[in-house]
């Protein structure tokens, strides 16, 4: 049989050490898109519903909710979620632009990745300053 004449395929190297793989910049934006999305799903959605529910219940509930959200731990969580929302938002717009074949070449893709990461962090800092 012809199939038996072929040499056995060489074992390919499997190299998936996440701490040793150097991701290109667009790869970072991509994995951060995932991480931020997961955070928004796990914490963001229930927190959003809870906050809106309390905020509409009564003036007392509003004040109570504000107090709960102004502890240092709450503020830290809010800042992380703000980053997640901002990163996901900006990276999403980058996705939409690329769907329309805007910025598809390697150089622009790298540049827009850098813009996404930096802009999300800068806006998060602005939110943090406002919050504190």
């Amino acid at each position, binding site marked *: 049989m012809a199939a038996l004449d072929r040499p056995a395929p060489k074992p390919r190297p499997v190299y998936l050490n996440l701490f040793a793989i150097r991701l290109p910049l667009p790869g970072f934006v991509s994995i951060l898109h995932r991480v931020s999305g997961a955070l928004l799903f796990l914490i963001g959605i229930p927190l959003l519903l809870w906050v809106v529910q309390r905020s*509409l219940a009564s003036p007392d509930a509003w004040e109570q909710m504000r107090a709960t959200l102004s502890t240092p731990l709450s503020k830290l969580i809010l800042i992380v979620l703000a980053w997640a929302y901002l990163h996901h938002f900006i990276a999403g717009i980058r996705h939409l632009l690329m769907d329309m074949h805007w910025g598809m070449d390697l150089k622009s893709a790298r540049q827009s990745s850098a813009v996404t990461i930096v802009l999300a962090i800068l806006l998060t800092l602005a939110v943090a300053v406002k919050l504190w």
Partner: protein
Amino acid sequence: MVMPKRVVVGAHYGWRDWLVQRVSAVVMALYTLLVLFLVVRNGGLDYAAWKATFSSEIFRLASFVFMLSLLWHAWVGVRNIAMDYLKPVGVRLTFQVVVIVLLIGYVGWTIQVLWGGV
């Protein structure tokens, strides 16, 4: 050569997920800008203005559409993550069922928040 006219791949949810993810993203982005605009117009956040904003039936409907977009968007994203990292079928199925139940629960909670006080 005449090629047979036939469909070569299976379930077709790929392109639908792709589209849902983008349409829901645009809805959420527009709603985000709307809320930002309303808060700025109200001169910040206070209970009376916030309550008044939510007393508008149109705003409630917009909020509902936003939440459905968010939950559907979350489903597509979480499902993709599950397909990449949860390999044993049983684990993945269990995880997906939990997520679906959770998301349906969130739809109920959303309705409660938006129309429960009426």
